[in-house]
């Protein structure tokens, strides 16, 4: 949330993902869950990755840490570089040193991500001892210190508690302590607050922002919640149907979304500050990963679509400096003006 402006960072990126594709074998044929993703994250930056269920955002996060399950296959030619080092080519042993030490992940469900038969202190200390040659007592000391830092009250005695003795919010804090105890350079937070109540969510988001500032780490925040993206990130990638469809500095994304999907998503979000009334829905459903539509994958649901959208797959085109979108409207901006005057916004998002 501090502002090391991403544009003014000529230094090599912390994380650079190119052409990342993950395919799953399913009964209905191969599912291209993630299809040619490119991502860049600079040191200290908070980046959002947003999308709805099935868009591939969680598979992306797993692939970055090589945690894709055996049914999934990371395509040849995919590249994930951390400080220039190719993670996809690392031997297993070295990869284990990267996980938890340089890159850590916090998952959505704190109840299942913690081991139920170990105390939270043991679980945090175990991470320390996996990555550093320290005595058990020292590992425990660091664990307690970290538990205190994430706001677990009376951390020294609480470290002896088992996960089931903690509330959901406290379990999520314990998981964050596990993730951060080795001071990673990058934290991947995959829907870190989705299972929590809104007041607890607020606490956890404040905590993450505070820790990020304190440790100067980068955060990749994966979420379906546009409110969380708006409040915590500097730059955002929007995913749809296995692809990045838009990338922009977060303020620009909300002020002037360039992709009709992003636009539709923003209009569909219920807002506290809006009066009672109808929402603008995006018609139709997200297609299954086994059958992405030809051309632009969003075209069957898009109010602007014309022949080209059904025939040709759009590349990411520039909307403004640092702002790209996978939409032919950027190549033919005249169409947007023409359609909107012809229909006066009539058919947009009509179909509930």
């Amino acid at each position, binding site marked *: 949330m501090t502002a090391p402006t991403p544009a003014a960072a000529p230094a090599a990126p912390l994380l650079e993902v190119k052409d990342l594709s993950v395919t799953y074998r399913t009964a209905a044929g191969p599912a291209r869950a993630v299809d040619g993703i490119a991502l860049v994250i600079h040191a200290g930056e908070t980046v959002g990755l947003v999308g709805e269920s099935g868009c591939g955002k969680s598979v992306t996060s797993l692939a970055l840490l090589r945690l894709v399950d055996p049914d999934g296959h990371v395509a040849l030619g995919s590249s994930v570089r951390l400080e220039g080092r190719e993670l996809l080519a690392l031997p297993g042993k070295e990869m284990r040193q990267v996980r938890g030490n340089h890159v850590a992940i916090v998952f959505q469900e704190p109840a299942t991500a913690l081991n139920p038969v170990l105390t939270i202190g043991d679980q945090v200390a175990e991470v320390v001892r996996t990555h550093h040659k320290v005595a058990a007592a020292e590992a425990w000391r660091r664990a307690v210190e970290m538990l205190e830092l994430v706001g677990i009250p009376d951390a020294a005695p609480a470290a002896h508690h088992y996960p089931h003795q903690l509330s959901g919010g406290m379990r999520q804090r314990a998981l964050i302590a596990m993730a951060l105890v080795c001071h990673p350079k990058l934290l991947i937070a995959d829907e870190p607050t989705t299972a929590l109540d809104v007041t607890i969510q*607020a606490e956890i988001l404040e905590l993450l922002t505070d820790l990020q500032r304190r440790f100067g780490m980068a955060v990749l925040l994966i979420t379906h*919640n546009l409110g969380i993206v708006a409040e915590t990130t500097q730059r955002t990638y929007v995913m749809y149907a296995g692809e990045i469809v838009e990338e922009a500095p977060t303020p620009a994304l*909300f002020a002037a979304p360039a992709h009709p999907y992003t636009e539709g998503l923003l209009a*569909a979000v219920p807002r506290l500050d809006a009066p*009672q009334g109808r929402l603008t*829905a995006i018609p139709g459903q997200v297609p299954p990963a086994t059958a992405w539509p030809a051309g632009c994958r969003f075209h069957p649901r898009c109010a602007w679509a014309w022949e080209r959208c059904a025939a040709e797959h759009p590349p990411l085109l520039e909307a403004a400096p640092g702002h790209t979108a996978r939409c032919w409207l950027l190549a033919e901006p005249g169409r947007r003006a023409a359609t909107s005057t012809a229909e006066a916004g009539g058919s947009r998002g009509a179909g509930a």
Partner: protein
Amino acid sequence: MSAPAPAAPRPLLEVTDLTVHLTRRAGVLGARTEIVQAVNGVSFAVGPHETLGLVGESGCGKTTLARAVLRLIEPTGGTVTFDGTDVLALPPAPLRALRRRMQIVFQDPVSSLNPRMTIGRAVREGIEIHHLAEGADADRRVERLLDEVGLPRDAVHRFPHEFSGGQRQRAGIARALAVEPDFIVCDEPVSALDVSVQAQVLNLLADLQQRRGLSYLFISHDLAVVRHIAPRVAVMYAGRLVETGAAATLYARPAHPYTGALLSAVPVPDPVTRRHRIVLEGDPPSPVRPPSGCPFHPRCPHPGKDERCRTERPPLAPKAGGQLAACWKTT
């Protein structure tokens, strides 16, 4: 008592002092029983064609309350009056008849639809149980209902697993509508859906209400969703209503500190607005051992919090904005 919203002459549903205490086993091998005070002395009314939004976080008792209103759980105290009938006093047969008029739509359409029953049969079931139509007449009704909720006609012969979450929720709504109810409890009906589909289903519920003159008790943990559908809102905390009133007032000028904290915690999809967020300390209280006095006092950020808050429970009382709130400290 100043009316929180222009209330209808006679409410369709009137709930007075409703209490649900559940008994559960606790301790080693369930050696001991404990009483869970899920709902405590809750009163509200829903008028004809009206939507009341009921908001609260997990464990606040909102789902138990909804079920108790329909007598899917037996309340331990209080009254529920539906269109002049005392629901809690009804013997089984007339209760079944009354349930035709009171329906429920659940959060999770996957587990509320029988996986081995086609959508057509699921929708038709209620029509037959309540002898509303049969044969070809019933077929036509089912088709009309599917049209009305925006499902394709061939859904009649298809099974729930063939549909997406949003479509299954439409099927759940069609099933509730099949018996032509006056009142529907919507229990987190869009919580499991993605944003784009959630908007479709919310719009559908609003359209159906207008067309059919339905009343809704709309339960959600999401204040923004409730803002879009309900002109009147009740906020629940630890088994009790802590604030109720017109949505416009309650969202703009909450009188209960809990409502204020809840509203401030919702992330706003606007990177330019920076609001003051009230972060609450601690967790909601245990329903087995609710705190003395005001149930919110252990977490309350109000600077004037005092001994009275700790010892004496505040009643719902009229506040300056026109809403009712259970707080000693706000006016």
